């Protein structure tokens, strides 16, 4: 279970939160004049990176507030938590722990138990 540092309530156990999928996916302004493809991108397509991932959480069993976080999905480390209205942190502030797109982090039990 992760510990997530809610911007309003402080660090809490992950069981108090619900994940909101990818962050910074803004709803198209006037939807009627965009293509079906662009609308499908908004409704169904979300990025699914292994490594640095901008995502949303809601403190569903706490203060009920939504917020964003940057997490490394190859190790589950939460690197940064910030409010919905804050600016999106730049990707270059964060470094992936894996060398290739679907590589394995040098972390034990599972992918890479023993130092070669």
């Amino acid at each position, binding site marked *: 279970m992760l510990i997530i540092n809610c911007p309003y309530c402080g660090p809490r156990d992950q*069981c108090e939160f619900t994940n909101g*999928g990818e962050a910074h996916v803004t709803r198209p302004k006037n939807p009627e004049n965009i293509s079906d493809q662009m609308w499908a991108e908004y409704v169904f*397509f979300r990025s*699914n*990176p*292994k490594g640095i991932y901008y995502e949303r959480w809601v403190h569903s069993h706490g203060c009920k507030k939504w917020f964003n976080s940057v997490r490394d999905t190859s190790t589950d480390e939460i690197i940064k938590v910030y409010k919905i209205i804050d600016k999106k942190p730049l990707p270059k502030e964060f470094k992936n722990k894996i060398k290739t797109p*679907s590589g394995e982090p040098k972390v034990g039990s599972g992918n890479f138990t023993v130092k070669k």
Partner: protein
Amino acid sequence: MKRKYSIFSILKNAISGHENWQKMWRSPEPKKSYDAVIIGGGGHGLGTAYYLAKEHGLTNIAVIEKGWLGGGNTGRNTTIIRSNYLWDESAGLYEHSLKLWETLTQELNYNVMFSQRGVMNLAHNEHDIKEIKRRVSANTLNGIDSKWVSKEEIQKIVPIMNTDNLRYPVLGASFQPRGGVARHDTVAWGFAMRADEMGVDIIQNCEAHKILIENGKTIGVETSKGIIKSKKIGIVASGHTSILAETAGIRLPLQSKPLQALVSEPIKPVINTVVMSNAIHAYVSQSDKGELVIGAGTDGYNSFTQRGGFDVIEDTIRAMVELYPCFGKMKMLRQWGGIVDICPDASPIISKCDIEGLYFNCGWGTGGFKATPGSANVFAHTVAKDEPHAINAAFNLDRFVTGKLVDEHGAAAVAH
């Protein structure tokens, strides 16, 4: 078929101290180019190579696997096989697979131990009953052996189940007698062996880094063992498929989430069918080694760590000890997780895409193992013919643009 396995082959080898068993696959280094390259050495990937060679004569092909054969979801699932899906398109696909399962052991001459012990889906409230009766009716009209069983019949099939004295009593269930379980490892090894025999190169520890494209056509893939040229590339990498698709500039609507399962300590047979329950999302069967194989729901967030939270295990086990009182004194032996690639409509993607020669077989979410031979069969057709087979036509990528989804979430589970 070079290697012939039977009791006689075992007798012959036993006398010579099992010295001269043959290697099941060669694990060669990759050649410069192939007619087709399958990325992903799980059941679906190896099966695709097998059917490409067997039914389409494409033997100059390679399967590349970043880890070890069958080391992904094929080696981590709860091995449940059924075809009682709601929509006609899904019923067609999973029934096609079930029919292939029924002869797979003989076809591969390698015992995949497909045991048709029946699969039961429990109803715990009126809403469940309506949803299950609809599914049973659709199955029956699609020619799939699925029937409604009353509580009394359930107790005959699963005597250890406590149907009444629990928070959400069991009101009935659907039952598919032809459903069951199989041994997941031997499926991957069987396909690998027979594909290898037909000349397919199975290359382990070879990680795909980038799909190489030239004016809208695939020309090969850059891997940890150098560049492999090929005009046809099939990506069957479950949780990692969307990552590889991105390297070709293709976006997929997949989200990769942990799915956990656990086994208990081995005991003598106590439950001889597969019981699934959506309301308390826990499902159980007992392997031939005597371990209870129990599956849980997915964790709610994206992760590639192949592990999930302990609360998911807790939720499943506290439902289990209520539903099966004799599990109270059982112990969990081992708990693990896989990475399942979930589609918005909980149906797979077996499809071409805008780039010529690039094909995807993914999005199987929590239900990929049951589709292994069927998915491999139709995907081989799609790759070989550059046209989807009738069975997987509906599972194309642009259904998310047109809106023609195949929504297998069940009746949206919203109680009245």
